[in-house]
């Protein structure tokens, strides 16, 4: 085991694609050796800017990612892409379809794309994604672009992961105020109204603008609203230059350290949660104690809160 993991770590640090691909699988499955691998590569992690794109299904995230990554690669940047799609809660399977819009990037020098299912993370980010970022940074990329579907928790998680967050919206999804879900306005550094060729783009952009202008906590941080037609390549350059300007701001304003800390905190929290589950929850399922708790709760003898406390404290 140890030798194999060492080889894998060396391969990743040397920039071997195959090793990175295997390493990503290992951390995703949290298989034996995954922690050893992370320990080995950690000193080799070279931080790089991380851009996050989030938004509802089908708003055009992958089309936009495709453009950005193409531009970066043309400048000879090495780019890592992590595209997250939700796991089906029924089967545990997933269709990871982001490559459909990114296929021109496949096989091109300096571009590594990995599709990941959200797995246990209920649509949010999982520890595996934090670990994937570390592996990419040990492999040596100049930039990472993360695409996540904005459902529930993942929207707020992306703030802890990415230096710069682009929230992607589109018109015509019904009530515009509904479209701008609670919490959404707080997470974006830039708001993109994509599919501006469709009716209602102007209205949505105007609404966003007015909602955002009420939130000028820090003048430098008043988010920008851009209208795009990603499928026609329209205004994508503007998004690109915004993202780069924002990166500069992050690096010169002391935000970088703050972001780094958020990222570390989230990685640690996620790993702790996963450990709790492994240590406490999984061994408990189906045991006598578990059944005892279930039946006591069902008979209305005691509440779930009571049992949770009792189980954790270990007292009888």
């Amino acid at each position, binding site marked *: 085991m140890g030798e194999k993991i060492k080889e894998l770590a060396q391969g990743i640090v040397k920039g071997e694609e*195959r090793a990175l*691909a295997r390493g990503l699988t290992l951390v995703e499955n949290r298989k034996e050796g995954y922690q050893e691998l992370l320990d080995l590569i950690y000193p080799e992690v070279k931080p790089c800017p991380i851009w996050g794109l989030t938004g509802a299904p089908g708003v055009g995230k992958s089309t936009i990612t495709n453009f950005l990554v193409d531009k970066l690669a043309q400048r000879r940047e090495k780019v890592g892409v992590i595209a997250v799609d939700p796991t089906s809660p029924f089967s*545990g399977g*997933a269709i990871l379809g982001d490559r459909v819009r990114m296929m021109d990037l496949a096989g091109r020098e300096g571009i590594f*794309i990995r599709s990941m299912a959200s797995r*246990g993370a209920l649509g949010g980010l999982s520890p595996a994604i934090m670990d994937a970022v570390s592996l990419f940074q040990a492999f040596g990329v100049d930039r990472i672009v993360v695409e996540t579907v904005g459902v529930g928790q993942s929207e707020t998680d992306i703030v802890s992961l990415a230096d710069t967050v682009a929230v992607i919206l589109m018109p015509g999804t019904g009530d515009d105020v509904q479209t701008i879900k609670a919490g959404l306005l707080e997470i974006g550094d830039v708001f993109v109204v994509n599919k501006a060729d469709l009716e209602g783009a102007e209205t949505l952009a105007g609404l966003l603008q007015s909602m955002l202008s009420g939130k000028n906590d820090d003048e430098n941080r008043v988010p920008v609203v851009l209208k795009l037609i990603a499928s026609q390549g329209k205004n994508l350059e503007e998004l690109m230059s915004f993202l780069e300007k924002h990166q500069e701001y992050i690096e010169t304003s002391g935000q970088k350290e703050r972001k780094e800390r958020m990222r570390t905190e989230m990685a640690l929290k996620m790993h702790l949660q996963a450990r709790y589950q492994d240590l406490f929850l999984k061994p408990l399922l189906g045991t006598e104690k578990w059944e005892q708790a279930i039946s006591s709760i069902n008979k209305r003898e005691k509440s779930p809160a009571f049992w949770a406390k009792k189980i954790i404290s270990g007292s009888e």
Partner: protein
Amino acid sequence: MAENQIRVLIAKPGLDGHDRGAKVVAQALRDAGMEVIYTGLRRTPEQIVSAAIQEDVQVVGLSSLSGAHNHLFQKVASLLKEKGHEEILLIGGGIIPEKDRKQLEDAGFDRIFSPGTSTEKIVSYIKEKVNG
């Protein structure tokens, strides 16, 4: 939990046709608990193989609606071999004439499913080959 999560790449090489069949298979595999990297239409063998390597899949499935893509299928098989990824289970399906099936299996395909094969059969074939 997902100790041995099966990951499959589904692609349709070649220029013609639609990808309805490939999508049906992709959904069936998802419903059987697999993670399916779906790449869509008009993929070159080079793109398919590069994606398969980066995604670290155990299975590559190609779909064709005519016998016309025999050479593209063969190219995928030979590229995988060339890059040292013979361990990847390589399967094909759609509408592939009997005589081509043999040829493709000789070229490195583990299995070419005949038209009308049920998705259940494909699912159980993959599970058995990957896990068993």
